[in-house]
């Protein structure tokens, strides 16, 4: 079969099993779009801005585990995609981004819409390819998917010069079934000796804690993690990226850890004698000040990426490997071991944890005449029966969603954890809804974040992706305002907008339903109305308490044991509790 480069690219994606391409046409990809036009296997989702394409593909990838695919043109199309590529890179999300490029002979001449996409994306991709030979195109695409989806996943860019896709140059086509790359061997057989040492340490623990992260979600190891945790009877805490990997409503789960984690999770980390980190990377938002991090603990770390091990925190027993097989091996050894978890010590440990839990760190004022954002999330959880896919933007609302919507399943919580990209939530929700048309999909956002990719409301209408936007509108960039309140003596420098659009009218203008909610007693009914409209995108503009802060909090430069807590109901002053 002889095909043009454009046809090869499209056919390769079909042969790869791609369902959706999120993209935006332009000069350098015209041949590609012409080839797309002439096929029916792949659905193209036309976004309104290339950033939206990357986040939508990302949402699709996070909620399914399959790679997201993006197609953008050269120059501004490519640079607009960079934020979304970096977002995926920081959270290890498999994506393949095809960017158009000017024709090979004019590369380097500052041609119209030329940009060095390989150079620009180099630090924020797992790998990138510039295609210089049409006969290598199919193989390059196969390699890109292979690299993106194996080992520690990540985005891969394929930069395709326009002349490579020219319709009159046809070459034989065959999509490779598999590829191997001599310099890339992503699967590491875990070291049994290390695992054995880890199991011995774990079973000897008096105050153990399981600290699990996004790697468990990416590695599809929720079931194994759950069995492992239950077999040991140890407390577990999840990172922001790991929420849902272990059921949040289970009694062994003591909540998220880190800057806005629960008091009990952070205190348990601080006081623990053995930590097992599973698919987590000791991010600075998790550890707080490194010198103060977990002073009494021996640390076991399971990670697929050797570079994640001992990057910020030195660990005692590193295990390089995929989470799933490592946990399976550990389970076998635990079952066979004559040593059992120390029941007595564990009982004392759980008693100590119960005391920390009694602090009730997630309390908030339930009597307030103003709408409390935490209450909105609780109601969202209730109305969706905890089954929704929840995307979020970045800021206070993101933390409240993470704190007050307990996820019992993996891949339900879709947020930009590493890069912290405002504007992520709405396009990501569109990607999620396309992948899961029958599921409830909510985008928890704020009036600042939502405006960063608001144009995708139009995409949501065109492709009939009825999502529910929960806009926690506090008329502030809340997280910035909170830091300014705590650290800059309330000098609210540019953390509010003097003009905010009428989101109800805006939603209506985009062809959706807009509802404004001003009173706490209206919240529940509005959420019920929104989720009962199965075929409409609904924008709930919820006027929340402007002054609400995210608690508890580890302030910059402090350790896990030094959290700022809310004092009492109704008060926004705080005390230190050490």
């Amino acid at each position, binding site marked *: 079969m002889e095909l043009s480069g454009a046809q090869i690219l499209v056919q390769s994606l079909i042969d790869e099993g791609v369902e959706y391409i999120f993209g935006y046409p332009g000069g350098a990809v015209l041949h590609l779009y012409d080839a797309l036009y002439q096929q029916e296997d792949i659905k193209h989702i036309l976004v309104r801005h290339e950033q939206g394409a990357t986040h939508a593909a990302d949402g699709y990838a996070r909620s399914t585990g399959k790679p997201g695919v993006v197609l953008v043109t050269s120059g501004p199309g490519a640079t607009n995609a960079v934020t979304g590529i970096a977002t995926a890179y920081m959270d290890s999300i498999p994506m393949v981004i095809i960017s158009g490029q000017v024709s090979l002979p004019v590369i380097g001449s500052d041609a119209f819409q030329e940009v060095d996409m390989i150079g620009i994306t*180099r630090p924020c991709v*797992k790998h990138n390819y*510039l295609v210089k030979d049409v006969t290598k195109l199919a193989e390059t695409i196969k390699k890109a998917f292979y*690299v993106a989806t194996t080992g520690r996943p990540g985005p891969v860019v394929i930069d395709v010069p326009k002349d490579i896709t020219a319709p009159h140059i046809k070459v034989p086509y065959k999509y490779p079934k598999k590829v191997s790359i001599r*310099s890339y061997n992503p699967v590491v057989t875990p070291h049994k000796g290390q695992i054995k040492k880890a199991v011995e340490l774990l079973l000897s623990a008096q105050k153990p804690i399981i600290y699990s992260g996004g790697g468990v979600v990416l590695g599809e190891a929720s079931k194994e993690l759950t069995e492992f945790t239950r077999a040991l009877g140890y407390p577990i805490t999840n990172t922001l990226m790991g929420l849902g990997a272990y059921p949040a409503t289970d009694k062994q789960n003591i909540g998220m850890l880190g800057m806005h984690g629960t008091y009990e999770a952070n205190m348990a980390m601080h006081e623990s004698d053995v930590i097992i980190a599973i698919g987590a990377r000791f991010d600075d938002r998790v550890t707080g000040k490194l010198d103060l991090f977990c002073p009494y603990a021996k640390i076991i770390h399971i990670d697929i990426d*050797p*570079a994640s091990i*001992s*990057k910020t925190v030195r660990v005692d027993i590193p295990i390089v490997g995929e989470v799933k097989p490592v946990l399976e091996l550990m389970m076998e050894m635990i079952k066979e071991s004559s040593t059992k978890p120390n029941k007595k010590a564990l009982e004392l440990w759980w008693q100590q944890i119960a005391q920390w839990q009694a602090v009730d760190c997630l309390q908030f004022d339930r009597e307030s005449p103003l709408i409390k954002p935490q209450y909105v999330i609780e109601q969202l959880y209730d109305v969706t029966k905890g089954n929704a896919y929840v995307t979020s933007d970045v800021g206070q609302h993101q933390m409240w969603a993470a704190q007050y919507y307990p996820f019992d399943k993996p891949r339900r919580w879709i947020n930009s954890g590493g890069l912290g990209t405002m504007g992520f939530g709405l396009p990501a929700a569109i990607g999620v809804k396309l992948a899961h048309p029958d599921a409830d999909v909510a985008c928890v956002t704020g009036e600042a974040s939502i405006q960063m990719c608001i144009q995708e409301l139009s995409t949501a209408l065109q492709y009939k992706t009825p999502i529910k936007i929960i806009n926690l509108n506090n008329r502030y960039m809340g997280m910035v305002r909170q830091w300014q309140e705590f650290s800059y003596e309330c000098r609210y420098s540019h953390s509010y907008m003097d003009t905010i659009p009428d989101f109800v009218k805006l939603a209506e203008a985009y062809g959706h339903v807009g509802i404004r909610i001003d009173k706490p007693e209206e919240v529940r009914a509005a959420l019920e109305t929104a989720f009962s409209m199965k075929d409409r995108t609904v924008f709930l503009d919820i006027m929340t308490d402007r002054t609400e802060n995210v608690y508890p909090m580890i302030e910059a430069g402090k350790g896990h044991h030094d959290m700022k807590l809310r004092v009492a109901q109704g008060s926004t002053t705080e005390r230190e509790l050490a």
Partner: protein
Amino acid sequence: MRHIISILIENESGALSRVAGLFSARGYNIESLTVAATEDASLSRMTIVTRGSAEIIEQITKQLNKLIDVVRLIDLAESFHIERELMMVKIKAIGDMRAEIRSMAEVFRGKIVDVTPSTYIVEMTGPSEKLDAFIAAIDSNSIIEVVRSGSTGISRGEKGLHV
């Protein structure tokens, strides 16, 4: 501590920038970097001299290994190895200085490869410290130009860095 990291990397365009970019993005320092093709045209050999604590060097080697184009890598400083650097020095040489520089070059086993009535060019290879020592031994006012290739190295014994 000083380390010499030797890398076999796919001979693709942009491979050098991936390595150089990694160092700058993560704030690692490069003392010198040399790169050239090997006997296998599909591979380049890169030698990087860097300094850092054991933790930093561990991260550098892990991050380099993570680059898809890096095929193999060793830290030469971890075992017996031979290190060489090429240097050419253009030196003012007038009157008595001419004999002095000639004998100095001989002591350091350098060669004079270019002669004018007022200058010499001395070519010298050796470990970087030897080249440093030669520079230190010459009157700095008489040095017109110094060109150094950066260090390259190879491990001693039977083992080799290859695919």
